[in-house]
């Protein structure tokens, strides 16, 4: 494959743009372009199976044969480079005869089982057989049989249908970067499959059924669920990480049946990660159906009508002073509409200033500075990541935070970019190469400071410093680990300073990127769901309390009412022990779509809609605001979250000033111009970050120092990729992929040497002890975890390792006892 790419480069050395004639139409194309490229530009469809615009050219199906004047034989248009004066016929007698011949060959050993094939109705082979296939078979021999494989929970195989186009093999090798598919045997015994039968490990394996032009590789959860032509299709935006991939939601009778990738050149090209594709079965599980209220004398929640529930909520909000009321919003699955309405309601209807969405963030010292959007999001557009010549990942694991972003990084490394990572855990990456610098949890700041000193003193000696000095287009990515780090602000400022040293913060190339991994966190920042800023990055006269302060105040009785929007501080966040204490002490009004422990504790429950059940504006990590339309209906009595807030505001002196979604969106747009989407083209949607200068020259030592050591093991929690929000946690499909949950116990991972030191075996039950708190979980051995640390996943309902954590003093030091 590499050779073929080399070939293209050699061919590109031709100087001028050749002109050719395809079916009588003249066109000039880039040197090195193929006949297929030229035909596509002219809008001429040439039938094909193995050709895929994003994969290397294999030229094996032979379906795209065309006639070129002065050439004795038909040539394949996908591989034949254009030359000056070529005259191509894509529908001559010779071409039609060739296509019929190829079609017959592809069909003779195909089982022709379209009636029971998931691909039926959306199958290239079926479609082209309609046009070029014979109406009866001349093949009277036995059809061959191919072996099927168990590739895990996502991909179903029916290899008898395989036409050996090798798209799946090329996808695995070239895009996913995990060579899991291959072809064995020769001739008509050739079989496509995994070299070693096992569950596919790639986070992109759900694309295999998409690239398969026939029904050989199928979407397993969708297997036999519906016929393609019965489904209604809605366009959508994926909300399960911050990349904002374009998806197509296929549904039948108000049930989402599958999610497919929708092509978007500037974001996801034509791919989708498994999380985004297979989370849909969690959409409808454990839903809140009707409003509920807990009366003063009654301790159980009772279903009531909307007016009763709203009245009770209004009564609670009016009973206390505004400073006794606070709001917490989730950042994963909320649209910008409800985030805007949420802060508007709290600030202007209730009069409270205490609201936040950053339950996972430990370090709030950045709130002191007037940060702009460019400090909080990505500044390098996704497409430009592939052009980077140096990549530095600071506390980022892009493959499992933003897989489609990671593809761009992979492209950059394949094109020769060098890549370094600063992360205490050994990353399971699929970049062409990655140099990881050894560091322990808490040592990241010192490492970056050392690098900055090297650059400032002009004595670069470490490989990273030398590479950094020589880089023309460096990108630095701060990931979840860095964003939720106890010294996040120092890391951020050091990153800015590093980029400033090499002039990579300008409008020509801005390499500063902060990945806010969760779905719509960017919109929460834009809409001002933070205590220190209003919507559109406007300054506030009076600052409120942040997430940590709100929970602490609620737990000690200063705050009496918590308004929750799609979040549960007893389940998510840095310190869930504190979160549950707050929920136990305060009155709780919960707006959201899903059941959770907070609902069980709530005084008023107002059921909202899931992400596919309403129009929502989602803003990705680059800052593109995109509108995701409604696909299916939600539970009958559930309402859009912003309408709930609007209805609630009616019971106050100054209700919210918008009655329609359009009016609300207009208000959002006037608060932040990037949200005026009406007159934008699909591809641009909204500008990515506007390259406004980020805050430079600040004192880099912003955060409180972190104490490392102290006898215990540092407990580090990272988001669990496949179980990161209310929907993914409920998805049974993703549950099969997720690791780290077993028999209701959480799993803590530690290095085999550390386990030996503590005399702990793999799978053994252990007790983690930190001061008065303790937790039982299972031990797993993982050589990727550094010695001296324990690693766990955040946000599992069944075993909350966050119960051991709090906002103070860096990573919690815990002791470990085998049981």
């Amino acid at each position, binding site marked *: 494959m590499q*050779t*073929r790419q*080399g*070939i293209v480069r*050699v*061919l590109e050395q031709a100087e001028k743009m050749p002109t050719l004639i395809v079916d009588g139409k003249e066109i000039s194309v880039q040197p090195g372009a193929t006949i297929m490229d030229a035909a596509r530009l002219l809008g001429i469809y040439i039938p094909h199976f193995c050709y895929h615009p994003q994969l290397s*050219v294999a*030229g*094996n*199906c*032979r*379906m795209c*044969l065309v006639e070129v004047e002065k050439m*004795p*034989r*038909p040539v*394949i248009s996908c*591989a*034949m*480079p254009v030359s000056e004066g070529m005259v191509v016929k894509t529908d001559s007698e010779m071409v039609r005869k*060739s296509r019929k*011949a*190829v079609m*017959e*060959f*592809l069909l*003779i*050993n195909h089982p022709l089982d379209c009636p029971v094939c998931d691909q039926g109705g959306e199958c290239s082979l079926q479609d082209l057989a309609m046009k070029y296939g014979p109406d009866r078979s*001349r*093949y009277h*021999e036995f059809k*061959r049989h191919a072996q099927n494989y168990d590739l895990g929970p996502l991909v179903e195989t029916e290899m008898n249908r395989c*036409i*050996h186009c090798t798209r799946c093999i090329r996808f695995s090798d070239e895009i996913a970067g995990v060579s899991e598919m291959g*072809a064995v*045997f*020769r*001739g*008509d*015994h*050739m079989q496509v499959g995994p070299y070693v039968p096992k569950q596919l490990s790639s986070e992109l394996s759900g694309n295999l059924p998409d690239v398969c032009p026939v029904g050989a590789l199928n979407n397993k959860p969708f297997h036999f669920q519906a016929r393609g032509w019965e489904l209604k299709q809605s366009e959508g935006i994926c909300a399960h990480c911050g990349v904002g991939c374009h998806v197509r939601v296929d549904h039948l009778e108000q049930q989402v049946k599958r999610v497919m990738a929708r092509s978007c050149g500037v974001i996801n090209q034509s791919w989708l990660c498994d999380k985004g594709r297979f989370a849909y079965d969690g959409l409808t599980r454990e839903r809140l159906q009707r409003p509920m209220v807990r009366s003063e004398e009654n301790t159980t929640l009772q279903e009531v009508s909307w007016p009763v529930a709203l009245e009770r909520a209004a009564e609670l909000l009016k009973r206390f002073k505004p400073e006794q009321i606070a709001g917490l919003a989730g950042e994963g699955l909320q649209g910008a509409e409800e985030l805007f309405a949420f802060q508007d309601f709290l600030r202007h209807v209730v009069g409270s200033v205490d609201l936040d969405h950053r339950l996972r963030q430990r370090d709030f010292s950045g709130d002191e500075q007037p940060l702009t959007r460019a400090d909080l999001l990505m500044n390098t557009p996704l497409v430009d990541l592939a052009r980077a010549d140096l990549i530095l990942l600071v506390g980022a694991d892009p493959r499992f935070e933003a897989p489609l972003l990671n593809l761009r990084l992979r492209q950059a490394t394949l094109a020769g970019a060098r890549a370094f990572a600063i992360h205490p855990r050994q990353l399971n990456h699929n970049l062409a190469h990655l140099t990881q610098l050894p560091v322990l949890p808490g040592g990241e700041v010192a490492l970056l400071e050392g690098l900055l000193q090297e650059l400032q003193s002009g004595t670069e000696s470490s490989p990273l410093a030398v590479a950094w000095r020589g880089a023309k287009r460096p990108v630095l990515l701060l990931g979840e680990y860095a964003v939720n780090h106890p010294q996040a602000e120092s890391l951020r400022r050091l990153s800015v300073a590093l980029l400033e040293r090499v002039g990579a913060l300008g409008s020509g190339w801005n390499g500063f990127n902060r990945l806010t991994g969760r779905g719509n966190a960017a919109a929460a920042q834009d809409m001002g769901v933070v205590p220190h800023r209003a919507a559109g990055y406007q300054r506030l006269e009076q600052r409120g309390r942040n997430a940590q302060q709100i929970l602490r105040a609620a737990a000690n009785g200063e705050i009496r009412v918590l308004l929750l929007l799609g979040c549960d501080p007893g389940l998510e966040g840095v310190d869930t022990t504190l979160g549950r204490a707050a929920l136990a002490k305060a009155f709780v009004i919960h707006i959201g779509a899903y059941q959770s422990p907070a609902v069980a504790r709530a005084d008023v429950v107002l059921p909202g809609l899931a992400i596919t059940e309403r129009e929502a504006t989602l803003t990705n990590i680059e800052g593109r605001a995109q509108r995701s339309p409604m696909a299916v209906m939600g539970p009958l009595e559930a309402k859009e979250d912003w309408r709930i807030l609007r209805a609630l505001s009616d019971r106050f002196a100054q209700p919210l000033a918008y009655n329609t979604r359009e009016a609300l969106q207009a208000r959002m747009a006037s608060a932040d111009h990037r949200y005026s989407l009406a007159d934008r083209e699909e591809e641009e949607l909204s500008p990515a970050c506007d390259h406004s200068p980020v805050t430079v020259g600040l004192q880099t030592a912003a955060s409180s120092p972190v104490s490392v050591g102290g006898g215990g093991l540092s407990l580090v929690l990272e988001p669990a990729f496949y179980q990161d929000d209310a929907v993914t946690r409920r998805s049974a499909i993703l549950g099969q992929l997720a690791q780290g949950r077993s028999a209701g116990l959480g799993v803590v991972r530690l290095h085999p040497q550390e386990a030996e030191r503590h005399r702990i075996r793999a799978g053994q039950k252990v007790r983690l002890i930190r001061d008065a708190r303790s937790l039982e979980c299972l031990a797993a051995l993982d050589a990727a975890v550094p010695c001296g640390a324990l690693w766990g996943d955040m946000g599992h309902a069944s075993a909350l390792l966050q119960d051991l954590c709090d906002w103070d003093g860096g990573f919690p030091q815990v002791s470990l006892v085998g049981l």
Partner: protein
Amino acid sequence: MTKIVFKNIHRPDSHTLAVYRASGGYQALEKALAMPGDDIIDEVKRSGIRGRGGAGFPAGLKWSFIPKDDRAKYLVCNADEGEPGTCKDRDIIRYDPHLLIEGMIIAAHAVKAERGYIYIRGEFYREAERLQAAVDEAYAAGLLGDNVLGRGVRFHLAVHRGGGAYVCGEETGLLESLEGKKGQPRLKPPFPANVGLYGGPTVINNVETLASVPEIIAQGGAWYAKLGVEKSAGTKLFSVSGHVNKPGNYEVELGIPLKVLLEEHAGGVRGGWENLKGVIPGGSSSPILPKAVCDTVTMDYDALSRAGSMLGSGAVIVIDRSVCIVRAIARLSRFYRHESCGQCSPCREGTGWLAQVMERLEQGKGVAADIDLLLSVADNIQGKTICALGDAAALPVVGAIRAFRAEFEYHVEHGRCMVA
């Protein structure tokens, strides 16, 4: 008659460097090293020698396609002699390996290749050993290495044994295999002359072609061009097998009448010329010639092409009247089905289809429509595949039906063979 590639093989220990040198070996190399590369290419062009592996592409022209850029260039010798019926290269390697090595050094000097590989068929185990010994001798004698004969020319040569796949005799399949990948032909363009081994410009020549080079340099291209006939210059090795009294490799000038080759050189057809049924003249991929054509046809590129077949690798398979053509072709079809790499649809599916229908016909289970079906399937394969293997599988079937349709019909009608 003039012998070029077989001029030494009668000498005792002809495979050793000492004997090769004693008979004038490596003198052409001395001469070539004093010539600019382009002059060597011109000399080879002047000789008119065409590729001896099967395709018959003019060798000098092929060399002249190598771009004069600064990329590393490669010379590859195709010794994957797998075409059924062909066994000529094996004798060159067995009995005169230094002739090949000398030819390769000259060719490498001409195209500025500093690395060469001999890709030898996996089954040629002893031959590979002998070839390796010869390469070792050449290194020891300073004929290979960083400074060939102290003349400042660098050429390193390695012997690589293939795994026995027929398709690796296809030049780009060979390159893939040499690079350590699955032996599957590449798409062309680009051609190996531009993007070949490891992406570099590459010349790939057959053993016999390269072994002819020293004599062309020694005697001059014009001398060589006088041998043979118009557009088929020089001598050619014919591997005569089948129903002749003296099967074997014969070096004769191109243009020799087939009848002369068989009757005078190969000891005559078993049971006399009249017992001849047909001849496959250029390896198993070439269509069979019926006796009537064999009476007059001459063995050169153009004459065989006009007769509806091809010179191919020069493997002459002689078939007398005791042979069932249907059975013989069914065996060939089975071979091509087995050896198809499976990459492209027409060959993968078509070779299997042809073989199954041929087998049914041979077993007497065919129907009349099968004969036209074979022609149609063969036509559908031809010209639509990545490499020539598809054509190679189709042509023998088409040729046999064209020349011996009655035998196929007899199989259908009587359920058995005409000759048995």
